[in-house]
């Protein structure tokens, strides 16, 4: 058997000093970063009041709660819960639609290929960012102050926080559109509005429709929780039943949410594929 020639270590070292003699800072970077991350984690555990005793006691409680949850049982309030679930779905659908309607014109203002001037675009983008930075639950609290307790506040809260998200997503979709079709409209004598209507919209609408459907799906989840602060829907029932420790009803409500979300997921993914085709998954 032939043997491999002995490697020319010195020659390699002379040719690639960077590989063999890495500076100390480069060698220490990864372990130091890991150490820092672990240190912050440990500090967090201590600061946030974690202790084995609390953990154990909590686990014990949790186990007990789980036992109490079985079997799930709505008691006599099934019709009430079904109505609340319907309310939740309505909130998600209306909120998302409202947000999409308002976000479309604003997203045009935030798109680089429609408004080339940075002076206009920058404030619009920052405005959308700040709306997005505030959680849906906070918007729900604000809207409750304005229109009172109830699902309508929830619709407006979902619409508000989605408005920020849609504005950004839509404007990105518009920026990604092919400019040639717009130029074609301009070459045949179309004005700026016609350029948007016939050049951009046919390209952008399927993408937007896909995103809206996806958001209806994810908003079903958000709509289940805004009831916790009093903005209607199944979250209200859930929070109430947790507060009065009716664990069988709680588990039934959670099951209802799981089933509803799965159903909406299934429907919207079918619709999405029908609209945009299988290849483009948003």
């Amino acid at each position: 058997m032939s043997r491999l020639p002995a490697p020319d270590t010195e020659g390699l070292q002379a040719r690639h000093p960077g590989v063999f003699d890495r500076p100390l800072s480069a060698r220490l970077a990864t372990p130091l970063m890991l150490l820092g991350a672990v240190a912050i984690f440990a500090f967090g555990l201590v600061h946030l009041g974690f202790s084995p005793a609390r953990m154990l006691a909590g686990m014990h409680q949790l186990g007990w709660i789980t036992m109490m949850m079985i079997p799930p049982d709505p008691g006599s309030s099934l019709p009430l819960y079904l109505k609340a679930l319907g309310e939740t779905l309505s909130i998600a659908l209306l909120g998302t639609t409202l947000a999409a309607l308002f976000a479309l014109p604003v997203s045009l203002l935030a798109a680089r290929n429609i408004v080339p001037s940075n002076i206009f675009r920058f404030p619009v983008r920052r405005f959308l960012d700040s709306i997005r930075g505030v959680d849906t639950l906070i918007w729900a609290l604000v809207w409750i102050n304005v229109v009172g307790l109830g699902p309508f506040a929830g619709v407006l809260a979902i619409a508000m926080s989605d408005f920020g998200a849609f504005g950004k997503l839509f404007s990105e979709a518009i920026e990604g559109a092919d400019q040639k079709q717009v130029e074609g409209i301009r070459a045949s004598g179309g004005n700026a509005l016609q350029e948007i209507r016939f050049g951009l919209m046919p390209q952008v609408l399927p993408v937007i429709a896909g995103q809206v459907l996806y958001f209806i799906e994810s908003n079903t989840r958000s709509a289940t929780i805004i009831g916790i602060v009093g903005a209607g829907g199944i979250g209200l029932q859930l929070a109430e039943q947790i507060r009065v420790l009716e664990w069988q009803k709680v588990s039934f409500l959670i099951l209802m949410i799981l089933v509803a979300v799965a159903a909406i997921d299934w429907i919207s993914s079918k619709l999405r594929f029908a609209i945009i085709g299988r290849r483009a998954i948003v």
Partner: protein
Amino acid sequence: MTVAVSILPSQQLAALNETYRKAVARKRLRIALGAAVFFAALLVASVGAEVNLRTFFTYLGNFASYFDRILKLDNGSRVWTDIGEWLWGWRKWSFYLGETILISYVGTVSGAVLAFGLNFLAAENTAPAPWLRIVVKRLMEICRTVPDIVFALIFVIAFGLGPMAGVLAIAIHTIGALGKQYSEMVENIDMKPVEGVRCTGAGWISCMRFAVWQQVAAGFASYTLLRFEINVRGASVMGFVGAGGIGQELLVAIRKFYYSDVSAILLMIILTVFVIDIGTGWIRGRLFGRGRHT
């Protein structure tokens, strides 16, 4: 310049026109049907959600004036005329914001570690046994679909009020969300290195360590940073149910109509979220180079 346009004989043209008209009409009909179903759904939904346009327009002024009020100090002047008075509680609020970030950090890290342990069991190409894969996947699905604030509500009762419940809720939600993203990433890897390592007689753990990990590490880090960003937002409302962080302060300010405090806390939350967004974006850029992972 004149261009000769060849025109088809009228009979042929009529047939073509007819087909075209039919195709367009069919498409229009389908769109109209879809729109009708959609509007019917909207109508049903607006009845279900008790949409009342009259209340809305009556109180729409309230919305504008609400923002007017939260931007006013108690003495009636605008908030930005006296920053010291506006942000009077900045020490306390910064403390709670720090706690919020810590909650999401600890929650994200522990969730990510557990998701990392579980995801190889859930991915189709690396799962040791099919039944195990199905069990793990269902488990993740439940963790993901139940909103984190619902977990927080339950944990507050089990573990007592305080940030611990928030951390655990975020950790559980993170296991579900990251576990899914991780395992999808593992399903997309190139299997040849795995076969190579397997050929040397390596066991399952060695295969994961020396063939899979190298391909997915960068993507895992990127997703984890993104999840941290999302969790900071989530942690900012954990206080609404008594699970620690800035939410408690905000809830009190909104419920008790401390108007200028509401705007001050909102401003601090928005700024924090911005800083975290930019920070994680920067780290991702440093780690993987711009444009490779978005």
